[in-house]
């Protein structure tokens, strides 16, 4: 079937079978391999993307269901010049990235949280990333990166 949806701010069109997941369409049809397949059963969050602003597992979402909707993947997170955004930069600076497999999902989980809660507590951050597994970092640095970004964005707002 023919699919048409807004991907990272641009309208895309692709052909996919009715049983294709959003994950496979993103990776195999559209070549956006930033979204990872971890468990494939909705447990690990490596395939997280934003669907109409909401964090979802793309391995459990049918591509057909996003027809006409808005999808944001990790490729849509960077600055216009292609460099990492402030949250991605914070992940790098505090050492929240080791093997990197969970990172795209973690960044999107962080962005989804910050969009609805500009000043999250550490507990709220931990709850927000509870559906994203990381087997390297022990999570502390990931929580740090999200918290530091929240603070910096607040400071920027008050300066402006």
């Amino acid at each position: 079937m023919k699919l048409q949806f807004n991907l990272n701010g641009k309208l895309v069109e692709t052909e996919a079978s009715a049983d294709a997941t959003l994950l496979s369409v993103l990776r195999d049809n559209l070549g956006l391999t930033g979204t990872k397949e971890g468990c494939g059963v909705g447990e690990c969050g490596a395939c997280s993307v934003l669907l109409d602003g909401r964090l979802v597992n793309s391995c459990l979402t049918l591509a057909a269901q996003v027809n006409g909707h808005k999808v944001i993947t990790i490729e849509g997170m960077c600055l216009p010049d292609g460099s990492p955004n402030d949250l991605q930069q914070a992940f790098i600076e505090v050492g929240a990235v080791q093997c990197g497999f969970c990172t795209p999902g973690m960044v999107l989980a962080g962005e989804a949280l910050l969009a609805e809660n500009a000043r999250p507590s550490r507990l709220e951050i931990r709850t927000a990333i509870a559906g994203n597994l990381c087997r390297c970092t022990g999570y502390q640095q990931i929580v740090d990166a999200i918290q530091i970004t929240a603070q910096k964005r607040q400071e920027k707002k008050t300066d402006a």
Partner: protein
Amino acid sequence: MHQFGYVQAASVSDAVLLLNEPGLQSRPLAGGTDILLQLKHEPQFCDRLVDISQLTELHRIEQRDGWVHIGAAATFAEVLENPIISATAPVLAQACATVGATQIRNMGTLGGNVANAAACADSLPALICLDATAKILTPAGEEEIPLSEFVTGPNCTSLPSGGLLVSLSYPIPEEGSRSAFLKLGRRNAMAISRLTVAALGRVDAQRVITEARLVTGSATPRIERLAAVEQTLVGKKPTAELYRQAAAVTVDEMIRLAGYRWSSEFKVPALTAMTERVFAQVFDHKEVR
């Protein structure tokens, strides 16, 4: 994944027509968090998915004539963020908040949780505690069934083939009622519940219990209000000793209904503590709700 078809329903009545199209085994698709996994394991489960997730009327949550009506395709996130739900049924908001993690709560739906009727479904004890009913649409017409009768056992419902669960409704508990939900899992996030308890209660001006309801999840084959427990509480003043008595009756009821199983050794002390705790949350507060 294996080949199956997909069609988007244009309306609720269209969905019922599509589900009953001859020659095809069709199933409704709401959040997909259960059925897509089911199709991975069992490709023959159905030939075609009828997508009902895009129908706005199935996401609607509204209050009418003393009842709250929730569209079957409302996601857990939509339910737990809704002010009508948090004002009238904290027990349901709390139950939805314990489901999976953000990603699952954003896709998974209340109707899907009910229609799959897993023994460990988090929303079922809360809904049955609220005396909820299920509205079913079939080509023959509409039917409203008490949820405790709709869910007949683990993964079993009385949903006729080709029928669609359209909405869930509950009567708004009387003024002054309080409710609470507790879940025991292996960890906080993504945990399949090992045990859940949903309770609702009310005291009069003299602090005598006028109403008490208790429903357990993952404990008995059928999810239902435990009348014996409720009778232990009504007409008495809430005290820690009374909660202990209620907990003892709850455990007896679990063993009477489910038998003494391999897990009972663990479930008995856990259910005892959870029952005492949930009634303390319901009754040991001065403020209303």
